[in-house]
């Protein structure tokens, strides 16, 4: 080992130790700690990133307004790399090491399904902003809540709109083969069957796929007149562009994962006219006062427009804060949990929210359309 190498190695070891010690030292005052678990690296990092941003913005506003019971709120964000086992590690760390008062996260349903066992055992309230697997709230775990309108509601809404309003007869479905995409696909296919419409093609693609033309050609060949896609915005942008390249010119439709200002930036004019379900209306023009204020504040804070995940995360934190206020200064976790469960008609940025008996947030679903040149408009419910 060279001299330089030894020095570097020694320095690294010192840095490890120093940083660890720094992490352990406790602050003077006793703030309320919110743990965030999210994929901050890997393929879903972009979603994890806005999740943290949304919560952080809410916390900033809460602190500016005097905190909760006069106490400051801080957050600790941990990366789970979207791997269930690592998610469990991260939540364990938040719950037992950092002793957080509540957990917000994570993105991927499979990771949430794994890590919610930890908060259940420890008795710590947890809100997942966007994990969409219906099972999460159906396993009898009283400590987990979800803000995202479930896939069931979203997918049904878009299918009904497509069949009833757009008169689509030969729809096709393309979905990413993970829990989010598969979950949405299942509901779409079932709902289409209920409406006596047969999908002409149902195609999957891997979450890291970049070329979907094989699937799209098959869809084109099947004579589809509408395409449901259940995926995130980056892949949706690829699909929109590749569909155009192979001459597949049909109505594109999807779920909440598509709502992101980046979509139009990436897909360009291929994204114009795209329809998707949402509870958060991302365009200041025509948004509710709450949403408009949020979009403003978010843009000011981060220099970018929020996506729906940021909005869900923001609302998650706000509902959590309300519940903590209601639960009294002791912040008894059970009381906080019950207070979250008792949320009724909360006017959040993602709509008017009521938590149902399972812990799901119920509210009206909008169908929004990307306008030519960018921006959104609501097409359903009709105004």
């Amino acid at each position, binding site marked *: 080992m060279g001299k330089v190498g030894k020095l570097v190695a020694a320095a690294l070891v010192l840095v490890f130790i120093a940083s660890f010690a720094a992490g352990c030292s406790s602050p003077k005052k006793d703030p309320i700690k919110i743990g965030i678990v999210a994929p901050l*690296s890997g393929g879903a990092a972009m979603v994890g990133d806005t999740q943290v941003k949304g919560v952080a913005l809410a916390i900033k506003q809460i602190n500016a307004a005097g905190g909760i019971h006069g106490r400051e709120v801080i957050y600790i964000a941990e990366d789970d790399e979207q791997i269930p086992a690592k998610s469990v590690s991260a939540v364990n760390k938040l719950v037992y090491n950092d002793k957080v008062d509540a957990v917000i996260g994570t993105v991927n349903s499979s990771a949430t399904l794994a890590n919610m066992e930890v908060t259940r055992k420890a008795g710590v309230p947890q809100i997942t902003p966007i994990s969409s697997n219906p099972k999460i709230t159906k396993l009898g775990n009283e400590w987990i809540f979800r803000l995202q309108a479930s896939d069931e509601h979203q997918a049904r809404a878009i299918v009904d709109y497509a069949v009833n309003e757009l008169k689509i007869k030969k729809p096709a479905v393309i979905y990413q083969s993970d829990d989010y995409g598969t979950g949405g696909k299942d509901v779409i296919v079932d709902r289409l069957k209920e409406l006596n419409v047969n999908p002409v093609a149902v195609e*999957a693609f891997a979450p890291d796929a970049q070329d979907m033309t*094989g699937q799209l*050609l098959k869809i084109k060949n099947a004579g589809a007149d509408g395409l449901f896609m259940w995926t995130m915005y980056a892949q949706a942008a690829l699909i929109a562009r590749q569909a155009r390249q*192979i001459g597949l010119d049909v109505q594109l439709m999807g779920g909440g994962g598509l709502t992101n200002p*980046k979509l139009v930036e990436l897909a360009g004019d291929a994204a114009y006219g795209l329809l998707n379900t949402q509870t958060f209306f991302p365009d200041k023009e025509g948004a509710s006062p709450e949403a408009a204020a949020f979009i403003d504040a978010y843009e000011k804070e981060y220099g970018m427009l929020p996506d729906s995940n940021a909005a869900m995360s923001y609302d998650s934190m706000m509902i959590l804060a309300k519940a903590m206020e209601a639960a009294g200064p002791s912040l008894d976790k059970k009381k906080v949990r019950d207070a979250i469960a008792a949320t009724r008609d909360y006017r959040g940025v993602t709509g008017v929210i009521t938590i149902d008996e399972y812990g799901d947030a119920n509210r009206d679903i909008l169908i929004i359309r990307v306008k030519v040149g960018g921006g959104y408009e609501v097409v359903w419910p009709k105004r």
Partner: protein
Amino acid sequence: MFVQQVIQGLAIGSVYGLMALGYALMWQAWAVLDFARGEAAMIGAFSILVFHSFFKIPFVAAFPLAIATSAILGYVIQWLAYRPLIGGIPINRLIATLGMGILLRNLARVIYGADPYPFPTVFGDKPVSIGNVLVVPQNVWITAIGFALVVLLRLFLTRTYTGKAMRAAAQDRETAALMGIRVKQSMALTFVLATCLGAIAGLLVAPVYFVRADMGLSIGLRGFASAVLGGLDSVTGAMIGGLLLGVTENLAAGYISSGYQAAIAFSIMILILIFRPQGIMGRRL
């Protein structure tokens, strides 16, 4: 539909082929499978993004700048993580490349964020119809540039002194050194060359698949598979392996099952390797 599927497969396959060229080159010079190959593409793509989109330098000027940047970064990377392992245990080199890949990928994420960036097309992405098939100009360019690079690379490796020295150094370091070849420089040069190839792949695909920190992961893996499929000691094989994988993937999605797309492609690859263990164009072991 079949012809169209094949054409689309050739388009993505060219990208795999371009990546595979880098693997083949690295194999020939360093006798290592370089798991950070995909990150060369990422570096290339981000370089052109920074010069062209952020600094607004015209593409013609930004292109060489991006290649030069990648070359310099490539040199630094090999100096940091690859050169110290020359003559060491090969699998350690492999793990070093894995570590380097993790490092570069996450560094890019820290600097540029996890979101993808769009990149304007240079060659045109409006499809042109020929007969009843649609062809996208930029895909044709990618394939053409891929083959041009194969020819250039072959000429370079077999006709120039530097190229021959590179191969000699790869085959037998000690003898090459005795013959007066500066082995370490030669290997560094190959690395830089391989990085440039990766960078070219990266900036060619930037308009098609966007620019993002982990873009190298998926095309890197498939580039690796293509290189092995084609035969690691053949640059022509690398390109052919890439095209074959691309077409197989597309046909699998179009005719068999999109859910099992990668599984079908890899099964066919395994079958080919069982019958031709040295890869399609590789020399017998």
